[in-house]
């Protein structure tokens, strides 16, 4: 069971949380949004192999929504941040992870 760090409560077990899908998908205004843009907002998600920014809710704790960057292969949480904070640079985070991994490989 994952240990997820709620930005408000601290580390808590996965069963206290609910995944709420990909983060930073802006809700369009009714005016001036094409059907294709609306379909993309409703249905299209990135589904990457690697880092993804996601919405989570500490539903059985403080009940707050927050965002997190998680690695979809290892399930490791890289960072958590509050709603409204800018999206982290996923490429930079991925590079950090790769450098960390290389350092550990070299260290053994």
């Amino acid at each position, binding site marked *: *069971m*994952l*240990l997820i760090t709620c930005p408000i409560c601290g580390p808590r*077990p996965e069963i206290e949380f*609910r995944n*709420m899908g990909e983060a930073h998908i802006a*809700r*369009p*205004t*009714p005016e001036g*949004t094409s*059907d294709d843009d*609306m*379909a993309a*907002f*409703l249905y299209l998600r990135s589904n990457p192999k690697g880092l993804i920014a996601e*919405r989570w*809710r500490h*539903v059985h704790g403080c*009940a*707050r*929504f927050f965002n997190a960057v998680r690695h979809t292969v*290892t*399930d490791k949480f890289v960072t958590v941040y509050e*709603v*409204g904070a800018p999206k982290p640079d996923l490429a930079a985070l991925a590079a950090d992870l790769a450098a960390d991994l290389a350092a*550990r*490989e070299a260290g*053994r």
Partner: protein
Amino acid sequence: MSQTFRRPEGGRIKRNKPVAFRFDGRALTGYEGDTLASALLANGVHLVGRSFKYHRPRGILTAGAEEPNALVTVSRDAARSTPNLRATQVEIYEGMTAESQNRWPSLAFDASAVNDLLSPIFVSGFYYKTFMWPAKFWTSVYEPRIRAAAGLGKAPELPDPDRYQSRFAHCDVLVIGAGPAGLAAALAAMESGARVILCDEQAEMGGSLLSDPDVTIEGQSGRQWSTDVIMALALSDRVTCLTRTTAFGYFADNFVALAERITDHMATPPASSPRERLWQVRAKQVVIATGALERPLVFPENDRPGILFADAARTYLNRYGVMAGRKTVVATACDSAYLAALDLHRAGVEVPAILDIRREGGALTAAARAAGIRVETGATVTGTRGRLRVASVEFGHVQADGSVRHDAVLPCDSLLMSGGWTPTLHMFSQSRGKLRYEEVTGRYLPGRSAEHERSAGACNGTMALGAVLDEGYAAGENAARAAGLATRGTKTFAVAGATTPDGQVLGALPHDRNPGRVKAFVDFQHDVTAKDIKLAVREGFRSIEHVKRYTTTGMATDQGKTSNMNALAIAAGALDKPIPAVGLTTFRMPYTPTTFGIFANTSRGDLFDPVRRTSTHDWAAAAGAEFENVGMWKRAWYFPRQGESMHAAVDRECRTVRAAVGIFDASTLGKIEVVGPDAAEFMHRIYVNPFLKLEVGRCRYGIMCRDDGFVYDDGVVGRIAADRFHVTTTTGGAPRVLSHMEDYLQTEWTDLKVWLTSTTEQWAVIAVQGPKAREAIAPLIEGIDLSKAAMPHMSVRMGTILGVPCRLFRMSFTGELGFEINVPAAYGKAIWEAVHARVVALGGCPYGTEAMHVLRAEKGYIIVGQDTDGTVTPDEAGVGWAVGKSKPDFVGKRGLARADLLKPGRTQLVGLATVDPKVVLEEGAQITPDADPAPRTHAIGHVTSAYHSAVLGRSIALAMVERGRSRLGETLHVPMPGGAIAVTVVDPVFYDKEGGRLDP
């Protein structure tokens, strides 16, 4: 005479505490501290089971968790019977009853042993190749017979009467395994002040030190050193020591599951104690010290009873004072078997020869010869004889060209073998750590970690005792430091008298026999031989994962603990590839078989799933109500009178509501209190309806969509104050509606000052519906003018009922004059009883959810989730009038405007009247234009609700039909197995179309 193979002294058993037990009905004795295996061996019993496929006689092979052969059923009574236990792990207790498995009529004479003679046809993939047709025979004939013939023990048929418990635990350092490495690690972690959990699967901690009489650590005997360390750990209030506790699963973020067996070793378990406890441990750091497992040698007929692992025999001798035989041949590729031979020799056991496959022998070859033991190097076993127990060993020498020249026959009553040691990687691999292959030693070892753990000792490939202790201590120190504690640094242990078990062989050994006929077993539990694996490769299987599934090697309950490396080496040899290129199969939890009881734990019976009851539940039960499950709720379904059928009861309840008055418990409806200066703006945005102008004291039927424009939930909303709304949701929708609201509030409209609170369980809701509803409640209500003028339809008032504060809604889900009385839940039953008395006095009655459904369907009121399915817009559901057309935005506004949702031809809610009024349609049934549609005809809709209406004297139905509202009067058909049912499309409002009854 009993226990003839027990030495007069030695071992850690309690000789002053004899224990009587039964094996296959035979009365035997052992001592407290014995396992079933050691006690059987003490009595000279080697034959303990029949093999899975060929029903070959099998004996005790190992002394631990890896045992593939000695599987037994231990029973206390008919319900407390546990099959497939490893006799090497079962501790005997006074009166224990154990049975062997997979034999009929008896262990010594098993009728199915004929399979062994037929073995040329039982090759790899035999079932896939043979039982191909007729296909229907598979489930009816083949599978039941195969299962009966190739079986494990039988599970008891009675419910498990034992209790199981669960505990969550947190620690700085979890140490898995309490052998030398684990003890040293726990010691280091304890000395740093860390909170430590140390677990070991055995009854006694100490691991290999328990069976080694020779070593000294820090000047003490190994056993004394371990005893002192265990004592120090046990006395520390920061260390939890768990024996009989298997770490069976390693999950993400250092979440490790432990199974503690509490009472299985007791003759009379105390009634107060659970049988097992599940520990769910979250550790900051983990030290894996799970040791290594010995491997068999793969030579012909290596499976007879009396053939066992060399180190197991040493354990039986030194820890239990038991000799595996009196005349013991030793075959080995590893130095550790010499230790067994020397200990047995010292104990007076005749050792005719040590057969060392290594041409030069090993570190102890000279010592063995000096002790007077014959050692043949470059020698291997080419076959064995003996029906129910090994009686002789044939051996030969390996020639320079790899062939084997037969040499001699050695009579014996036991044969020890050692192919070397396999590090126990299960925990590391389960943690998603990456394995690496060490070419020089031919072993897989822990590689890159995925979790905060480190391996120490034999599981990390470190075999010399001194190095094991140093590495264990360093691992414990490192773990404590990583957990944030100050440590004292590393430590070096002074060790003497230890022998490093060097040397190993992988795969099948050469021999001079007909390779097509002899059986050299690789996987003992699943009866897989070297030639089965070679055959699989010949038939084209390349991946070890496929070879595994085709031959079933490593797929038994032991998960190939003793067989995987040999199978891999044989497959690699046949494929002519290096071992790492063939790959290793996945390690999965549980490490050893784990009871269902510990997983089910307390979630059984009444505690299986939470049940929600309303405050009138007991009253309704006493009134004879039948209940239905709605989500977790128990709702009164209908209230049958003496001898009344459901149909009759529902008809009566419906008629009574329409003619007089009915009382209904609506407490399960979800309720959310929406409060704050921006509450009205929030409601205005989250619902499709306009809410800004709703007056205080008025109600509105709200429809909620998602942003895709599809109906998500509905319910009546009352405005209690300018900044306060009382929202109701569907019974099943309450949690997701609150989450949906919170989502928009917290992430989309962070500018709004609104607070949401679930009040579902705080309010009891009593619906009073019918022409006499006002008359029924009027005498009980204080502070509210109930007159038509003062309290119109869809209004809410605050007052008291019998002195209890209430929110009184005037609303209707039946089409009749109606009120819903909300009172604090604690008063629900009392108020219900008072209102019920009034209702009954006026000729009314209580009604249940079934009558509620019929009454609302007569009025064409939808139920979200029954008449809608997540693809229906408000307009299609017939409630398009609710949508606030002039609002600049609301959740679903843009979604509803999508071109595809505006296309003609989408389904719309209509009523259906069957041509035959007695026929009630089936909910979910498809609707077609033709009575006898051609195959693959597209259905134009489906029935969503269908009931018999007592007041209309006919059946009614609601349906979603393509262009439904343009089809009024059309005849459509509902094809059913018994023939199509003709229906007429009608308006969904069947009763009181003008709505006069709502507001008389």
